């Protein structure tokens, strides 16, 4: 209970801070909408072609918007030297990881909830399905699980804006590929059985990334 309560304290603090500044959601959302609009104009009218490239466009958008969001995850702690304040508090280091991860998850979900209707409108595709909701949820969990870890690693480097995507994107490639493949099937009327394998892969990577990141975070944050 104590673990959960302290985790929620960190998440609540990050959400409150973001509600005041809107630094993360505003910039990542603006980026996501610009990418969707730009790709819509670039690929023109053909519905068949759009359906083919739409899953890729969707996950490129979410991936890079996610990187923008994760880049800021530990910046306030670093800039205001509050990370040491958290580390001097009587909480397991893992509480910091889970609290930060939940906040990043919420920020990404907000970005996705706003971007998806715009995507649906411009690409005229059926994005409001249980399948796509589940794919988005699972992919976002894996994304923030490993992204929070790398954000903590990158925040101590000078060129953190460059370091995070360089380290992070190659690691989450399995998540992105699975999400693109599963979304492609979902958008073209595939059944639950058709996307089942990809959902399984997403779930497996989520579990692996969550466990490994949770375990490794202590070593990343210590020095």
């Amino acid at each position, binding site marked *: 209970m104590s673990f959960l309560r302290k985790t929620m304290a960190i998440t609540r603090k990050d959400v409150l801070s973001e509600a005041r500044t809107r630094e993360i959601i505003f910039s990542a959302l603006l980026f996501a909408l610009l990418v969707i609009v730009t790709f819509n104009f670039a690929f023109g009218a053909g519905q068949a072609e759009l359906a083919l490239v739409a899953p890729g466009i969707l996950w490129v958008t979410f991936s890079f918007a996610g990187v923008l969001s994760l880049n800021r995850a530990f910046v306030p702690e670093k800039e*205001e030297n509050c990370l040491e304040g*958290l*580390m001097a*508090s*009587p909480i*397991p280091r893992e509480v910091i990881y889970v609290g930060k991860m939940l906040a990043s998850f919420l920020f990404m979900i907000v970005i996705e909830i706003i971007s998806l209707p715009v995507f649906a409108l411009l690409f005229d595709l059926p994005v409001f399905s249980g399948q796509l909701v589940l794919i988005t949820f699972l992919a976002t969990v894996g994304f923030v699980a490993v992204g929070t870890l790398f954000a903590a690693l990158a925040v101590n480097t000078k060129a953190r804006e460059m370091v995070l995507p360089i380290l992070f994107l190659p690691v989450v490639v399995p998540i992105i590929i699975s999400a693109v493949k599963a979304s492609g099937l979902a958008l073209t009327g595939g059944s639950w059985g058709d996307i089942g394998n990809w959902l399984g892969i997403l779930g497996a990577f989520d579990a692996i990334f969550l466990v490994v990141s949770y375990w490794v975070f202590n070593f990343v944050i210590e*020095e």
Partner: protein
Amino acid sequence: MAAGEHKVMDEGTWAIETKGLTKSFSGHRVLRGIDIRVARGESVVIFGPNGAGKTTLIKILATIMNPTSGVFLVNGLSARDSAEAIRRSIGVITHQTYLYGTLTAHENLEFYCRLYDVPDPEDRIEELAALVGLASRLHDRVGTFSRGMQQRLSIARALLHHPSVMLLDEPETGLDQQAVMILRDALRAVTGQRPSIVLTTHNLERGLELSDRLLILAQGKIAYERPTRAIDLAGLREAYCECTGVRL
């Protein structure tokens, strides 16, 4: 070991005891075997020039940083086995305030109350806000505070959980005279008992005033140690120059 049970290494009277603490960064040795003992209720000041290892020592004692080698105990608890229990008994004040500028003073203190499981947080927040003279600014964002006000709020943050050991790393940075008096009074007022204090500072006069015993840290080693009553300011200046090679 069962949850909540902590290994007591030494049931002696020491609030802090370090044995052969060393710390290296990329092969550079910052601390070279620190052995210090701080009695319960004792106030120890550590002087030293920049780069002597004062901040590193405070960070290790606060369990923010691990030593490269050596051990230390806080209230008889080993940092290796009981880091969380140690953190619960320590209050840390540094020149960094550990406060979030986008949150109000109240939200910052409430956040730390949750991390430290402070009972009756509202009462404690109001009590400490009054103590540091910020009761009227409790619902203003910390980002709008002056440096001195932020440092005063940082004192309140560090005292929230009634710590028995205070670690102060150049806490007077940015403080005006009034805030220094508040800090001194606040430290005396902790739970009605005097906490054990380890203070680092450049200010020889203030260090003498606030401590029972003084140490001089030079090149990662304790180069000098005396009870405060056994030395005056002139003597301290002379010893400081001799140990550190720094002319005052």
